[in-house]
């Protein structure tokens, strides 16, 4: 059984997340493909716009809220969100802000609109071992899968989400019709 995550000193977490996000945008996927954007929310939260590519080559965009309250001892907290009057709230299945995908991006992954967490709350779960909520929802990684501070960074998290948003796993926005 994996220990439940606990929050990190907020100043340290914010500084580390900012450093790693800057490095990701400078040297990671955003440096090699168009469509990425960072939108600051507060010291511990950033919204990242991520491109998604359909099978026919069309490119969509999704917003992912990245939270660093437990970072980088634990992965960042991530959720698909939609912009609402200057703020961001969790995306709803069937909306253009919710990606239709097969949960088969080439690694173990699950996207749940509403998941009941052990603490009784019900909210989105992006389920893979580079996402904080994987641990908050009592999932247990193997030693090879476990998030490792000093080895894994927010690059691992956002790059995997980008992989999820690639055809053939990715179909299109939630308000469309797909075969």
């Amino acid at each position: 059984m994996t220990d439940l995550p606990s929050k990190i000193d907020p100043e340290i977490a914010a500084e580390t997340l900012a450093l790693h996000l800057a490095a990701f945008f400078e040297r990671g996927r955003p440096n090699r493909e168009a469509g990425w954007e960072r939108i600051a929310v507060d010291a511990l939260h950033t919204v990242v716009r991520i491109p998604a590519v359909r099978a026919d080559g069309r490119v969509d965009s999704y917003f992912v809220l990245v939270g660093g309250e437990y970072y980088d001892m634990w992965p960042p907290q991530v959720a698909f969100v939609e912009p609402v009057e200057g703020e961001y709230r969790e995306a709803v299945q069937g909306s253009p802000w919710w990606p239709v995908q097969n949960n088969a991006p080439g690694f173990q992954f699950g996207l749940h609109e509403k998941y009941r967490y052990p603490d009784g709350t019900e909210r989105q779960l992006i389920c893979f071992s580079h996402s904080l909520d994987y641990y908050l929802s009592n999932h247990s990684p193997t030693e090879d899968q476990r998030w490792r501070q000093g080895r894994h960074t927010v690059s691992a998290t956002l790059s995997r989400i980008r992989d999820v948003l690639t055809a053939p796993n990715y179909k299109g926005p939630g308000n469309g019709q797909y075969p």
Partner: protein
Amino acid sequence: MTTVPSTHAEADHGHNLQVTIYDEDALTEFEVSGVPSSTVGEVVTRFYQNDLKRERRTGDRLVCEETGESVFQHEAQHLEAYQHTACSALKWTFKGDTGGA
């Protein structure tokens, strides 16, 4: 930079091919240089030994950046032939295993 030695000096034309490997998990970049007659597998082995410093694991993924195709399925191929037929820029992306549900 890591270099894979030649075992076929005459065929190697005296030049090395450079493979760039992006580790997306740690956001680091490695360069492994190999002679044209070295195999893709030899380059992969050097990457694991000298850069990752561990054994390969079941869930590891190493893909050609331009095609998304797994590098592991080309391990027996000579590097120059691999460059001409499968991954012209010799840029790879490494991602370790993840769990999920």
